[in-house]
């Protein structure tokens, strides 16, 4: 499948994957993340069962301290 991840096109072998699987494949190991699929928030507790499909637009924002 082909998705847009943080404004870049990315291709994966799988037809679909969960948010947790995507984070693992991309080695996004940050503890503090905000994930949106097609502009809809995915809460942290839903990462393991929210599914990303072909054509989805995904944002993974790494939250860092400072303010």
């Amino acid at each position, binding site marked *: 499948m082909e998705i847009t991840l943080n404004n870049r096109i990315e291709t994966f072998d799988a037809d679909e994957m969960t948010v947790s699987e995507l984070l693992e494949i991309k080695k996004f190991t940050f503890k*503090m993340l*905000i994930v*949106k699929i097609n*502009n809809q*928030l995915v809460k942290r507790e839903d990462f393991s069962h929210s599914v990303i499909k072909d054509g989805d637009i995904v944002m993974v*924002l790494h939250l*860092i301290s*400072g*303010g």
Partner: protein
Amino acid sequence: MTFNEIRSILTTKTVGIAGAGGLGSNCASALVRVGIGKIIIADFDIIEESNLNRQFYFKSQIGMKKAIAIKENLLLINPDAQIETHDTFLTPENIPEIFNNCDVIVEAFDKAEQKQMLIETVLSVWPEKPLVIGLGMAGFGDSNNIKMHREGNLFICGDELSEISDLNPPIAPRVGMVANMQANTVLEILLN
């Protein structure tokens, strides 16, 4: 737009600011100067000496609650400004009540955990409400990497990279740049 035209629109608007530290205190000061109708600020913290390298407070205010001191300072800029402060620790339970009437919310926390909590709460409770967050402002220099980018109704201000640490502290110039970029983004949202 003339300043009077800008002001006449802004005077009808309410902006919520979550946190009155480096981002929140400076963002609020810019928003009061341009005449936002009402500003709602929440912070539970007390002013410490180490805050004075970037936050809009004064030496004589060390030990004061930020919720009290920020109101005092903003009213010095404009005694007629409507400033509502909450001396409270923001949680998913009280955020919906405190910021319910805001046209825009500004995330102005320090810790990543708190940023995460606020963003998740705001995006779940009000999926359509604009939220302006500060992300990445530690250290000095590197001005050109501070930017704003938009993801739906989430507006992200900062370099998105520089995390604070002992060797990369948050200090006035870059924190002020991001705080003012957040205020500028609020105006862009409210005036367009």
